[in-house]
């Protein structure tokens, strides 16, 4: 048996390859990026898996669904907030159902290490009425891919595998299996299933609801949902929270435990546990989804349900072994005697020589004639310009939101309405709001920071950079004299400030592209 050292993300990727996946789809986003990167890297030579980053998560999902339609297995991977972008295709793919196995690997970020929220993707699985696996370690991440693809093909439904940052970015040795061959092309010509006109959609939705008892039966019988009845104190533990529980259990403990790693929630097993205990602690890394389901609106008669809603676990943030220890009522471990010191923070910062620094220095100066100017920003390395010393941007909400929000502020009469967005984020979510703004002749100024790559997640390929980017921008119908290109360097500072001032003075839509290659990407090319 071969054992490989893999990140949880990589275990997902290898599990998918060994399950006979023919295509992987996604958009970079921490903590999911390494799933795709691993597959891209390891299948490059053989060339037997389609692996090109998509423009955004919605496109990725639709491409994966197309491959499933054609009868082959596809993996689509993204971070939790990426699923919001893909939600339209995702929700409806549960209605159409699938043909070749379709697995969605989504990595949540409890604690918001690299994200703007900590939304829990298990709600999406429940919402779409599809099965969900929640591996607690790297080996399970690998093994569950086989099960997820098989289950997807048996039930003709997409299947979610939910990761969280901690297992996505943690390495361990994984025992691997003999790879399964890829599917042959066998397109699904059942037209009505795939054509969600209301008359067809109603039929398909009924099919989906009729599959639910089978999904539940699978979860009840799943070896991943383990019930151990002992004393009158119970713990219901989901996914990798099981590790934090085991970490703190003394040998010979008397807790009754239900560990859950396959959904829908196996209500039969939950009932057995609930009927056996007087109090029940629910441990889940994410929202109190299961906790609230078990407690219901009015509480559970005869059983005290404890968790995030009752204060035993903090309402927000990532779980860890210390939090679980305290929730179990155990004293903290003794630590070495170390002096308490006030510690200088070391926040992340733009790299030395980063082109964004020069762009924002120029923008700050160009805006210094305005009182308290507002720059709507987007999601990428350049969001770090919100921090000192630059403090050049003043919002970060969603992919592409910079342009839409600047347009809305301009509609309200706010000037200058400035948006800052990177080249890849522009491809992802910036094109449509710019088209809107230009067609409405909104008075806004868009700064596109074209560094030719997806910098923050590790210099993946950008879809709209250089000439492609210019053509897209011009294609929105913007006046050519208000489409400017500058090179952000310290030497060009004064000239760049001048260009920005000119466009700020113009009453209408303008776009300035600040174009200079990411220095991190340059380093990668050199090595």
């Amino acid at each position, binding site marked *: 048996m071969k054992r490989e050292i893999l990140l949880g993300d990589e275990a997902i990727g290898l599990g998918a390859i060994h399950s006979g996946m023919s295509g992987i789809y996604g958009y970079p986003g921490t903590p999911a990026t390494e799933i795709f990167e691993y597959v891209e890297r390891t299948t490059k030579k053989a060339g037997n898996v389609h692996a090109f980053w998509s423009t955004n998560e919605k496109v990725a999902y639709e491409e994966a669904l197309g491959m499933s339609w054609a009868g082959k297995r596809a993996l689509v991977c993204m971070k939790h907030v990426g699923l919001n972008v893909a939600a339209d295709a995702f929700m409806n793919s549960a209605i159409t159902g699938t043909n070749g196995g379709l697995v969605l690997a989504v990595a949540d970020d409890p604690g918001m290490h690299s994200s703007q929220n900590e939304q829990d993707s298990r709600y999406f699985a429940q919402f779409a009425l599809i099965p969900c696996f929640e591996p607690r370690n790297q080996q399970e991440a690998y093994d569950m891919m086989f099960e997820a693809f098989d289950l997807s093909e048996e039930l003709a439904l997409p299947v979610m595998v939910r990761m969280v940052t901690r297992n996505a970015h943690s390495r*361990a040795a994984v025992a691997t299996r003999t790879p399964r061959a890829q599917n042959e092309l066998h397109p699904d010509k059942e037209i009505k299933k795939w054509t969600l006109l209301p008359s067809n959609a109603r039929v398909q939705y009924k099919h989906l609801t009729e599959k639910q008892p089978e999904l539940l039966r699978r979860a009840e019988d799943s070896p991943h949902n383990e019930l151990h009845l002992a004393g009158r104190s119970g713990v219901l533990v989901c996914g990798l929270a099981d590790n934090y529980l085991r970490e703190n259990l003394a040998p010979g403990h008397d807790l009754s435990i239900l560990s859950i790693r396959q959904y829908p929630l196996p209500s039969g097993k939950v009932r057995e546990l609930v009927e056996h205990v007087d109090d029940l602690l629910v441990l889940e890394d994410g929202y109190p989804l299961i906790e609230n389901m078990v407690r219901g609106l009015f509480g559970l008669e005869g059983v005290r349900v404890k968790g995030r809603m009752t204060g035993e676990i903090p309402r927000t943030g990532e779980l860890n*072994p210390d939090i679980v220890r305290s929730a179990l009522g155990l004293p903290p471990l003794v630590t*070495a005697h170390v002096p308490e010191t006030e510690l200088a923070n070391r926040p992340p910062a733009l790299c030395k020589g980063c082109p964004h620094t020069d762009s924002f220095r120029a923008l700050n100066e160009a805006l210094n004639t305005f009182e308290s100017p507002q720059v709507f920003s987007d999601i990428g390395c350049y969001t770090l310009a919100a921090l000192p010393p630059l403090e050049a941007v003043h919002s970060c909400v969603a992919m592409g939101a910079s342009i839409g929000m600047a347009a809305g502020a301009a509609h309200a009469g706010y000037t200058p309405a400035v948006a800052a967005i990177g080249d890849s984020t522009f491809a992802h979510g910036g094109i449509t709001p710019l088209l809107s703004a230009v067609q409405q002749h909104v008075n806004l100024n868009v700064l596109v920071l074209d560094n030719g790559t997806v910098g923050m997640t590790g210099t993946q390929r950008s879809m709209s950079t250089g000439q492609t980017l210019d053509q897209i921008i011009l294609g929105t119908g913007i006046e050519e004299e208000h489409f400017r290109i500058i090179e952000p360097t310290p030497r060009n500072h004064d000239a760049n400030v001048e260009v920005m001032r000119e466009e700020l003075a113009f009453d209408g839509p303008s776009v300035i592209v600040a174009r200079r290659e990411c220095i991190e990407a340059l380093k990668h090319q050199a090595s």
Partner: protein
Amino acid sequence: MEKNIILAGVGGQGILSIAFVIDNAALDAGFHFKQAEVHGMAQRGGAVMSHLRYGDSEIYSDIIPTGRADLILSIEPLEVLRYWHYLQPDGWVVTSITPYVNIPDYPETDDLLGELAAFDNIVMIDTAHIAKAAGNLRAQNMAVIGAASDLLDFSDEQFLRFIEVLFARKSEKIVAVNQRAFAFGRAAGRFFRELVDHGMPRLAAIKLAAKLAPETINTEHAAAWAEALGADQNKLEAVLAETEAVACDQAAAFA
């Protein structure tokens, strides 16, 4: 047996290379292991850490519980302070004394080293000095593994082999530089501990060790240095005043 290690440093210093070597050695030795790391935003010059755990039975949590760390292994002195509450009562710290200053409120180096030197179970090495002597300033991370190697559970052969695996795709020269940094780091760590065991204050011990030529450092001279300098600050200053690095066998010259 279970060993829990916090790897600490600043984004770009090579924490994950340390993790690579220990992960592979752990797998090779037949241990269970888990190693959680930080990706994404924090890597841009921010504080970076990794939890590395190995042992002979199953490792559950990817994160080390507070009070369970056996060792903090840091490529940067300030970063030690960020994590040392993780240490169990008998835990050890192995750290570089080379500051990575990319923030305006970085503390005075002497204050920082003084604070660290007050901790009983600490091994301090000057990684910049060692890595330069080994042939590349970027090899500081391997010097830290070297200094920690006596506190880990692997053979020299295992360390050197996985350093080779790690750097093989770059060049033979880079492999040799990193293996040398490992060996110098280990010698410097042992020498520091030996000086302290012979009664030299830790701050004096690290200052002395940082002045000696890394390729000459050998624990067998530690007793002679401890005896030669004693607690005499002036004698230490005389060594530090030398313009060139001092050979390790020259203790008698400063007695």
